[in-house]
């Protein structure tokens, strides 16, 4: 930034801050500084109007749920609501576990072994978000009598995605397996989702 000459001269130069032959004038500095300040202020002022669209505190407060697994009999599945979405919880039978473990994961579209989708010590509980990874419909197959698809697991009626009994995509347009949410077993029969 240029400075005004020490010796004030009664001329156009001192009156306007313009110094002849100088490239950066005092006015330029003031102009850019003002613009930058206004710009930062404007961004700061706009942010609350954007952020108010994000999940509010009451929504975030419901971001995890605890589920009692004791009432779920072997071979039975339930749906619970978590963050406004269904979560499928299935108490697998020994036969279903054996069938899921027998699949060669490397041949799958989204290679994942049964062990990667369940938690050590609680392998009998398969817990996954019941939302098709294609376009968000809810696959059938949890409750008794629902269509289970070609691989004995889950079937999405919207666009025909077939999942196996470990929730892995086997056929149809869905790109990935059903999502396993963050889980923490509080006891043998109690789990916190999220």
């Amino acid at each position: 930034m240029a400075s005004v000459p020490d010796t004030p001269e009664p001329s156009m130069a001192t009156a306007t801050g313009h110094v002849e032959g100088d490239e950066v004038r005092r006015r330029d500095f003031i102009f850019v500084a003002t613009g930058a300040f206004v710009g930062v202020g404007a961004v700061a002022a706009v942010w609350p109007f954007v952020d108010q669209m994000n999940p509010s505190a009451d929504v975030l407060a419901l971001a995890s749920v605890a589920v009692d697994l004791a009432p779920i009999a072997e071979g039975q599945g339930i749906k619970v609501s978590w963050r406004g979405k269904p979560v499928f919880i299935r108490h697998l039978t020994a036969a279903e576990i054996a069938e899921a473990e027998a699949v060669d994961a490397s041949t799958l579209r989204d290679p994942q072994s049964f062990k990667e989708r369940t938690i050590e010590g609680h392998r009998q509980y398969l817990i996954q978000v019941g939302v098709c990874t294609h376009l968000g419909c809810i696959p059938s197959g949890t409750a008794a009598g629902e269509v289970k698809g070609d691989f004995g697991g889950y079937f999405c009626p919207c666009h025909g995605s077939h999942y196996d009994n470990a929730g892995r995509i086997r056929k149809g347009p869905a790109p990935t397996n059903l999502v396993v949410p963050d889980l923490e077993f509080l006891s043998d029969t109690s789990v916190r989702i999220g």
Partner: protein
Amino acid sequence: MSFAWSKPYEPTSALGQWMDSRLPLPRLVYGAVGGGYEVPKNINYFYNFGVLAGLALVIQIVTGIVLAMHYAADTTVAFASTEHIMRNVNYGWLMRYMHANGASFFFIVVYVHIWRGLYYGSYKAPRELVWMLGIVIFLLMMATAFMGYVLPWGQMSFWGATVITNLFSAIPLVGDALVTFLIGGFAVDNATLNRFFSLHFLLPFVIAGTVVLKIWALHLPGSNNPTGVEVKGPQDTIPFHPYFTSKDLFGIGVYLIAFSIFMFFLPNFLGHPDNYIEANALATPEHIVPEWYFWPFYAILRAFTFDFILPAKLWGVLAMFASILLLFFLPWLDASPVKSLRYRPMLRKWTYAWLVSFLVLSWCGGALAEQPYIIISQICTIWYFAHFLIIIPLVSRLETPLPLPASISEAVLKGKATTGAPAGIEDTGRGAAPTGPVAQPAE
């Protein structure tokens, strides 16, 4: 737009020319608020308040749309959803305080704007429609603000809605049926809340449309100015941009500082604590008052305590509406050809006296409905109407105005030994045109 010497819009870029022959929006903006709109060079800071009112309207619409995303207009949850906005929604407290205080600041700005119009005679020919559209906006603002105040569904919301809608019950014969129709029931309830929410959302856009008409009407004759003398030539005006865009930006900065002080440090100063109690249809608060910006008119309503041919209740309602509606006739009640009160010493004194009576009325409107406030309200109500219906018509015919300056340019330079040129520039004195580049400050 309006003067022969206004700079024409000349797009320099190829894109600008392409656009100009297809959709001349840049031309419109240039002519309305750009270098193509010539403004009297002597307008003072009172003339910032039109732009400030526009800014206040934009702030209300933007924050209002945000609030509508989180608010629920149902009596079972309306109060809770307001608290939800305050506590849960990200920056919801900011949005609501900005909206609530923004309404108050909108009225402050508009009251100053109206005072400016009264003082400098901006309501007179050829700007009668500008003034009248302004009164229409003022009425729309009052309706919008009233309905908005009902939405949080607090005690003041509910009882304010009850009192104001019952004003219409004063109308002979059809009054009670009309109130039932307006509130959609026999008492203010869910139907009332829902229709008020709908109309509260709609009316700001009606205001915005009226603002466009008002600016259109204003830009034909151009702005009035403190002398009230019409523009006579190029020496009387300077372009809106950059001169008044920069002056308005400064005014906006000052306005936003004042606004922020209230919004962040005194957010409930202009509100009423009773509105943080949920609406209860079975108990009226002890002291029920409208928002401060309605106080003068509320005082007029309450000033009529005796029957005189018509019931007191009807007189109060008629007087309250008449106090605003008579402003529509002001351009014709004032017969003087001189606009600015600067040159009308007699009416200036009377107008200041009216201002005092108006301020006293607003003080009474916020006070309890008991003596001595009632008698003071009555005196000031008489004063209010006498000013517009007797004093202005009489004084405008009787007073001898001071001599007017021949032009804005002369008024600006009159009595000054210098042109106010910056130090170091040769002062050419009064009336002298700049002679060359040396005398023309470049920035």
